């Protein structure tokens, strides 16, 4: 701000810049930043969640003990289940931030292109085109998943404190497997485009890093899909029962 032209402009303009939070939330680039950060929070949670799920292959004792340990993290400094609730609060904030931004940005995008072209052709990759519907599928899945395996509301014969038995129970039904595997496929596609996009939004992407970021997105998508889906497959093939 050294030039005299700018000083003149500064002297005549009285309006101030809004706060950083305001600037972020009011801008399309800012809302995308909210989506990127909340998406990465959820993604890192999923990596841990997937690794925890794999404990099912070590038997009911280990799996149930792990589930119990999740409730005792941080004790005695933290009270029973506090750490878990802390994680839940962060996750809910991330889901809400991600969904509200996605909804508002999508509304804006649709308004910005009211009439399509007469000459139609497929635009962008499948993963890119299915981000919105994939996101809705995932949101519905999360609701079912919590009602099924956390609260047990939609799970007849749910046994609190016995996650191993509950998981085997769910994946012994055909619909439990279908819902889960479809949702995991949607998740893999969502991550494949979402992870790379988050890097672009946060300004980490550039020409030299592009290949690394795309590979990392593919690896994350495949590893998470394989890790999560291995559990219903193991129940179906009676490796876990």
């Amino acid at each position, binding site marked *: 701000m050294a030039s*005299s032209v700018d000083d003149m402009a500064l002297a005549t303009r009285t309006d101030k*810049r809004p706060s950083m939070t305001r600037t972020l939330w009011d801008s399309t680039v*800012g809302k995308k930043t909210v989506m990127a950060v909340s998406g990465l929070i959820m993604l890192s949670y999923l990596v841990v969640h997937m690794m925890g799920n794999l404990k099912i292959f070590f038997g009911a004792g280990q799996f149930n003990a792990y589930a119990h340990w999740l409730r005792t993290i941080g004790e005695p400094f933290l009270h029973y289940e506090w750490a878990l609730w802390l994680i839940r609060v962060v996750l809910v904030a991330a889901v809400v931030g991600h969904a509200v931004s996605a909804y508002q940005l999508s509304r804006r995008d649709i308004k910005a*292109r009211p009439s399509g072209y007469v000459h139609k052709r497929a635009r962008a990759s499948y993963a890119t*085109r299915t981000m919105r519907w994939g996101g809705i599928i995932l949101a519905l899945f999360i609701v079912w998943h919590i009602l099924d395996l956390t609260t047990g509301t939609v799970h007849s014969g749910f046994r609190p404190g016995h996650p191993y038995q509950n998981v085997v129970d769910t994946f012994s039904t055909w619909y439990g497997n279908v819902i889960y595997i479809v949702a995991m496929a949607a998740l893999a596609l969502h991550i494949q485009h979402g992870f790379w996009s988050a890097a672009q939004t946060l*300004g980490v992407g550039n020409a030299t890093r592009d290949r690394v970021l795309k590979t990392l997105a593919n690896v994350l998508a495949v590893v998470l899909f394989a890790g999560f889906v291995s559990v219903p497959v193991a129940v179906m093939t009676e490796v876990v029962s």
Partner: protein
Amino acid sequence: MKLTLRVWRQKNANSPGAMATYDVDGISTDMSFLEMLDTLNEELILKGEEPVAFDHDCREGICGACSLVINGDAHGPERTTTCQLHMRSFSDGDTIDVEPWRASAFPVVKDLVVDRSAFDRIIQAGGYISVPTGAAPEAHATPVPKPDADFAFEHAECIGCGACVAACPNGSAMLFTSAKINHLNVLPQGAPERETRVLDMVGQMDDEGFGGCTLTGECATACPKGIPLPSIAAMNKEWLRATRKAKKVGR
């Protein structure tokens, strides 16, 4: 060559438009796409019909005036401007769909002509450097590292045609805005207004009603000047940096 054209005809901004079918004959493969449309218009004028309105100026691929979505692709099947697209890219007997840029920020004025002044207002918001004018300064007075000069030049190639907006499923102007911001922000001459430029230009882009970026990559594929997709990431980086400094920057 004999061709069937299906062209978007719209009387003015307020009336509804529709595709109209025309047959054109005697098209040479050496004609540019615009010369082919000139041939059509000559016939229409002789028949006493209203010629098809379309934007064009230099016809050398450097001004950014020509537009047209041809068979669903901005500037047609080749990676160039419509004026530099030749009829040899098509075959005898083809049916070709010709439509205007589609975006709510680019309203149709008439037929294939759209109002792209939203781009001008984005430039007015910060696509300049403030210097006291006078005699041209000594070229070597301000050293610019070669990679920075190359980066700036790559982005300075943008001719502001709007193909990026036309190709984007969200009608987003991120590639145009990023090209203009990156071009100036990397240079020492652009440094004093580095933060205000990106904040104001992105703000203006949003105000004009362009959509957001979903990284589909359609813009960079359509761009006749090859502005790369990572430009958008570079602009996002500049924007986030400026947002952190916003308090100090002032207005």
